[in-house]
């Protein structure tokens, strides 16, 4: 057998297929194309073209790539893992490279060569890849190329969550709705990708030296290259973007092919691939959505009954009311006549610029109205409510929940349950006695919403309507489970590998959207929990496959209004119908309407919120991005008591004492937020100058993000790395963050643990932050509940470092420290009582913003306390009121100190009609999977509303505001 040195490498990634034919180092053929999930067919097409270059000579071949694995297995062709393949190529071509960064459609990889080879891939939860960039481009209504070109013109960067695509979308959407410049958003999207790669993959290793950037996105996106180079601080010589960047994996496969040995002719390889097929696993199939055409016809006829009267606006004469729903991805409008009939409707993607869309619509409507129709009132709801209201003088703003309920009542006056699945959100309301009784909204990490199906449809080369139609015909829908979008990509990939058709996948995705809503968001165990009369709405329910899947999962028929996607706008219009005279912008003024947005930084306080200032010609302005009222030029007319602010002040007012023995740094996050008064007093008493790292900021986080090994840990933990860096910069003699398996025993619980992260994060810091070698990092295991023991343990820890410290001094300092801690906790409780008393004296609602001690941090809690205060709530913390209720039995093992406070605070809320509880939950907090259900149970058993707010690195305050306003709306309806 003669070895010609001719070898073929095929790389089938999640979105693209690549092939190279190499002979003795020369590339004879190369091709890069999207495969739209038709893996086998596209591979055959590539082979067809490669055949011309190869002629009839034999060659070796190997397949690589995440979607190539199944194909290689079933065809019996050698397979090489893609990161390994990349490593092989780089070793051969760039022996002096010190690291490789490779981004693919859905994967991100880093290979380190210096100091021991280390190959890493993103875990199962990670966005920030090619598919993410595509999704974001779609969101902006741009092609990927346009996005790239725009990004090069940016002037500022916004922080955008990079953990996963869904999360990032919720950050970008409000930026767009608030009028941020597309160029800046585009560059910020790239920056998020860079941050994700560093935080998720570098894990404590710095990316330096000669770095190769490979893969499609880094080949095509110039702006992304620039962001990487700037962030990593690489010179032009160090950052290498090779021409073969897109083909590195395919080239690696061809290298591997030569060692794997087997030779093929083109015909034989084609045959092997053409005849490979996989057997579908019957256990993973679902029943079809419709058994017959007749079933479908009956289903359509039933739903056709839920309609609204319509009338042609061109012929109508009289009064009209306008409703606008400026949602996260779409803008909707409805104009109603005197008999609530629809005169005009509009539904469209807002293409990243809702202001322009509404302007166009108003122009159209005014045109159609002529002199015959007078608009007497208008209302707006949705994410863009305030912006649109300010821009066009809309009469009323109405919170989404109320708008939707108003509309649903029109179709079903006795409605028990409303489920709305929109582009980005799932909203569910339970109605009891004519008022909203509970509200559930999806968390940012699990939205299986409209845009989710749309994205999949597009990635498979269909528009969403056609994709939905296909689903209706599916013979055996695949069971994709209920999971978040990022995971769903790989599920779909797997089912394709198993031979599922587009029809089966479309139907399967509909089922999973429904399951996500029922089990993740509503958390229902049975259909009965939803009530008897269910109205479903939102654009996603236009999709008959989703509607049918919902009815099947529930085992009951539901009502889908014909205007399912317009319910917000319709409800808003109904809400405006008692108005007589509208202040809506006049047709004349509309003609000269202008809109410009610019960025600014608020100088009102140390928080320095990043503002977007929208001006609409003349002096009309709308400012967003502010956490409090100061940025708007008005100080809070009346400062309401806010325990979060009070606690922050109390902790930041602790001053360093004289430096007699040396200096000790205390990192202010996690458990230090609770025990700072104790340790501050302890070390000050011993004659140390105590340096506290201070309140967090985004800057602090970024300082430490290089050394985070586990990206899915909670933000309060990850920000610890930054606090350590801050203390290192200040050059303290020692840093102290003790390991406390057991927290302060406040009695009444089954045990008094800390959570594993609070207890042991110091171990992780020590293992992953090389810089800690510059100082002495003390993280002793301590018993905080026994002073004698504690003194003994502290002596054992401090004596080796500061030999002149005596046992006696430590014992005295411990006593002193506990006195300080107790004084602090007593003050917190007194303040809590005082705040409640003040609220009652002034007739204000009280909100227990229930979280953990570290949630008072402005960066971790994102100023939600201030937001609540601006909505006229007196804010108290869980630890300031939990002493006012007795510990009552709970249905969980009550074994964590901080969490026991939540249950008691919930009890307190149950005992007082003027107290509401809002629970703050950090993303990634496993313990809260237990506490949230229990707190919700406690509250709901007492007939209280439960509100949960999930927070992470970045939190979209717009969504939080809607949530809190919904709460207020529901309370008002209930008359509380």
């Amino acid at each position, binding site marked *: 057998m003669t070895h010609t040195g001719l070898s073929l490498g095929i790389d089938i990634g999640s979105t693209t297929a690549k092939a190279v034919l190499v002979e003795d180092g020369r590339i004879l053929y190369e091709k890069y194309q999207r495969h739209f999930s038709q893996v086998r067919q596209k591979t055959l097409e590539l082979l067809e073209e490669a055949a011309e270059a190869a002629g009839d000579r034999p060659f070796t071949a190997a397949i690589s790539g*995440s979607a190539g*694995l199944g194909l290689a297995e079933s065809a019996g062709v050698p397979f*090489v*893992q*893609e990161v390994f393949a990349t490593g092989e*190529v780089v*070793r*051969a*071509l760039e022996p002096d490279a010190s690291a490789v960064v490779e981004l693919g459609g859905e994967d991100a990889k880093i290979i380190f060569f210096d*100091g*021991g080879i*280390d190959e890493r*891939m993103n875990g*199962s*939860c990670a966005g920030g890849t090619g598919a993410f960039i595509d999704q974001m481009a779609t969101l902006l209504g741009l092609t990927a190329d346009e996005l790239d070109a725009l990004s090069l013109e940016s002037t500022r960067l916004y922080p955008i969550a990079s953990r996963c695509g869904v999360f990032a979308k919720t950050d970008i959407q409000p930026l767009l709705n608030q009028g941020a410049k597309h160029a800046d958003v585009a560059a910020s999207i790239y920056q998020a990708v860079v941050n994700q790669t560093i935080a998720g993959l570098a894990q*404590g290793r710095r990316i330096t030296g000669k770095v190769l950037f490979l893969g499609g996105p880094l080949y095509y996106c110039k702006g992304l290259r620039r962001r990487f180079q700037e962030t990593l601080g690489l010179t032009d010589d160090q950052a290498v973007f090779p021409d073969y960047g897109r083909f590195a994996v395919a*080239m690696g496969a*061809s290298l591997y092919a*030569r060692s794997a040995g087997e030779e093929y002719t083109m015909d034989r390889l084609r045959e092997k691939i053409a005849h490979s097929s996989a057997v579908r696993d019957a*256990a*993973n199939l679902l029943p079809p959505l419709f058994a017959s055409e007749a079933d479908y016809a009956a289903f359509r006829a039933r739903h056709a009954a839920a309609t609204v009267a319509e009338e042609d606006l061109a012929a109508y004469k009289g009064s009209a009311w306008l409703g606008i729903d400026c949602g996260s991805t779409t803008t909707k409008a409805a104009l109603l006549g005197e008999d609530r009939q629809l005169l005009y409707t509009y539904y469209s993607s807002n293409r990243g610029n809702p202001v322009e869309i509404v302007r166009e619509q108003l122009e159209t409507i005014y045109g159609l109205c002529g002199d015959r129709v007078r608009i007497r009132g208008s209302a707006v709801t949705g994410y863009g409510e305030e912006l649109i209201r300010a821009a066009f003088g809309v009469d009323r703003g109405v919170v989404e929940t109320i708008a939707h309920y108003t509309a649903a009542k029109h179709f079903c006056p006795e409605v028990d349950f409303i489920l709305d699945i929109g582009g980005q959100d799932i909203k569910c309301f339970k109605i009891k006695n004519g008022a909203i009784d509970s509200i559930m909204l999806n968390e940012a990490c*699990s939205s299986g919403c409209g845009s989710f199906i749309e994205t999949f449809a597009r990635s498979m080369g269909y528009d969403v309507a056609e994709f939905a139609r296909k689903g209706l015909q599916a013979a055996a829908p695949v069971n994709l*489970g*209920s*999971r978040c979008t990022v*995971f769903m990509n*790989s*599920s779909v*990939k797997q089912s394709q*590998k198993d031979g599922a058709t587009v029809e089966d996948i479309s139907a399967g995705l509909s089922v999973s959207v429904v399951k996500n809503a029922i089990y*993740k968001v509503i958390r229902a*165990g049975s259909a009965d929990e939803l009530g008897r009369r269910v109205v479903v709405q939102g654009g996603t329910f236009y999709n008959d496959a989703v509607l049918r899947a919902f009815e099947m999962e529930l085992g009951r028929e539901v009502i889908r209004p014909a205007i399912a996607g317009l319910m917000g706008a319709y409800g808003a219009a109904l809400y405006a119908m008692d108005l007589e005279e509208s202040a809506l912008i006049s047709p004349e003024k509309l003609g000269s309407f202008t809109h410009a947005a610019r960025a600014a930084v608020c100088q009102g306080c140390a928080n320095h919120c990043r503002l977007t200032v929208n001006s609409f010609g003349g002096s009309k302005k709308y400012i967003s991005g502010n956490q409090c009222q100061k940025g708007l030029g008005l100080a809070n007319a009346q400062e309401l008591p806010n325990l979060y602010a009070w606690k922050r002040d109390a902790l930041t007012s602790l001053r360093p004492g004289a430096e007699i023995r040396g200096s000790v740094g205390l990192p202010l996050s996690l458990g230090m937020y609770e025990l700072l008064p104790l340790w501050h007093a302890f070390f000050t008493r011993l004659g140390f100058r105590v340096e506290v790292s201070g309140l967090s900021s985004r800057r602090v986080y970024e300082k430490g993000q290089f050394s985070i090994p*586990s990206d*899915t*840990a909670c933000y309060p933990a990850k920000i610890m790395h930054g606090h350590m860096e801050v203390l290192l910069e200040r050059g303290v003699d020692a840093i102290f963050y003790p390991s406390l*398996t057991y927290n302060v025993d406040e009695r009444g619980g089954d*045990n008094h*643990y*800390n*959570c*594993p*992260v609070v*207890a*042991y*994060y110091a*171990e992780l810091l020590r*293992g*992953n932050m090389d810089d800690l070698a510059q100082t002495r990092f003390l993280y002793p*295991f301590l*018993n905080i509940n*026994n002073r*004698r023991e504690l003194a003994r*343990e502290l002596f054992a820890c401090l004596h080796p470092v500061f030999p002149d410290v005596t046992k006696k001094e430590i014992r005295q300092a411990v006593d002193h420290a506990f006195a300080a801690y107790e004084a602090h906790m007593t003050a917190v409780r007194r303040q809590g009582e005082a705040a409640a008393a003040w609220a009652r004296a002034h007739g204000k609602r009280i909100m227990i913003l229930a979280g953990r001690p570290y949630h008072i941090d402005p960066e971790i809690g994102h100023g939600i306390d201030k937001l609540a205060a601006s909505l006229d709530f007196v804010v108290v913390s869980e630890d300031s009121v939990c002493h006012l209720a007795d510990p009552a039995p709970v249905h969980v*093992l009550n*074994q964590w100190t901080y969490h026991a406070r939540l249950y008691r605070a919930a009890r307190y809320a149950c005992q007082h009609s003027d107290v509401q509880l809002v629970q703050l939950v950090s993303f*990634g907090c496993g*313990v809260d*999977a*237990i506490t949230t*259900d229990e707190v919700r149970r406690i509250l709901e058993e007492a007939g209280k509303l439960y509100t949960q707010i999930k927070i992470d690195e970045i939190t979209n305050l717009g969504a939080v505001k809607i949530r809190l306003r919904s709460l207020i709306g529901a309370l008002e309806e209930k008359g509380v």
Partner: protein
Amino acid sequence: MVDQNKGYVVFTQEMKRTHTILVPNMLPMHFQMIGRVLERVGYKVELLETSGPQIAETGLKYVHNDTCYPAILVIGQFIHALQSGTYDPDRVALILFQTGGGCRASNYIHLLRKALEKAGLGHVPVISLSMAGLEKHPGFQLTLPLVMKMMYGVLYGDLLMTLVNQCKPYEVEKGSAQALADRWTRQLAGELTARSAGGYRRVKANYRRILDQFAAIPMERRDTLKVGVVGEIFVKYSPLGNNNLEQFLVDEGAEVVIPGLMDFCLYCVYNNMLDHQLYGMQKLSQPAYRAAYQYLVGKERDMIAAIAAHGRFTPPTLFTRTVSLVQGTISMGVKMGEGWLLTAEMLELADKGVGNIVCTQPFGCLPNHICGKGMMKPIKEKNPAINIVAIDYDAGATRVNQENRLKLMLANARQAAREPEPAGSRRVSGSAL
């Protein structure tokens, strides 16, 4: 039904006769023997052997979806069984192990009760099997002889698991090692429950006979890679939890090395001794813990000595050795979840030359942020040639994704096996395109 003082349905003495206890199956061989021991003292016991996607799906329906994957699976398996019609829900009880540690796992039992409530099965009693005595069930009490027999079940199970793993990749006839292990499992279960068990001498004799019989399995030389598996206890052991990880690795030509269950038992006892050393807690129960520790260490040592004396197979590492290896990498105060033991097991595997390691964990496992992923950097610094891959298991994770990462680890392992090199040096391939 619900005892108002206790807040849960109690397993009464009466129920001991009427109810069948369903047991989740984390480790088939171990749990079969333990189950038979319970039958011996009058309980009706049934191991759940169900698998398939409907288990996780049922779990997701009744448990908060952000809860750890093992809880979703175990609870899903119970409820799926109860809803299957196979059992009379009025004559069934469930049992779960509860450590009482600071991680979420101690709450599984409460989550199970909540889920049962939601599924309309709130009357089904759930027994807490706990050495810490967290709950009291008059119908279910652990006696010392019972615990001892269970312990033998664990030792036998560890031995069989070790031997099967060492035979599987080489056996001439596929499945012969597992078949032998299954035969022994049945026989040992019978012996453990027999009236005249024959005492500890019999156990040691069994060790030798088991070793002889495994050594007699026809085997052939094959090139394999040794791959260690560590992690959160459920996903580490349960094929249901880890998508049949062991089988996947064997099919890829690997010999799987999994530390035994006795290590975890010893770890639990050891932590109670550490509570005293570190915090001065539990002073009164220290003599009991020390005695239990010495006793168990002795039993483990005998089992390991039997393997070593036989000479054909590689024995597991002594717990005391594992303890000594972890010093300086992570403090032993880290005791939630698998805690320091997880780090120790990776070091232990590296120590005995098993440098390829799969570290399994449920997605979002809190202790593993620290003891697993958080310790990889220091472990790599100590063992530059080590090749660890961390795999997350979750209802949302897919097999393709997991297998692709495993394949990367295996590719690197094969590369390293082909060209042994001094640790830390750069490999430069001679071939160029």
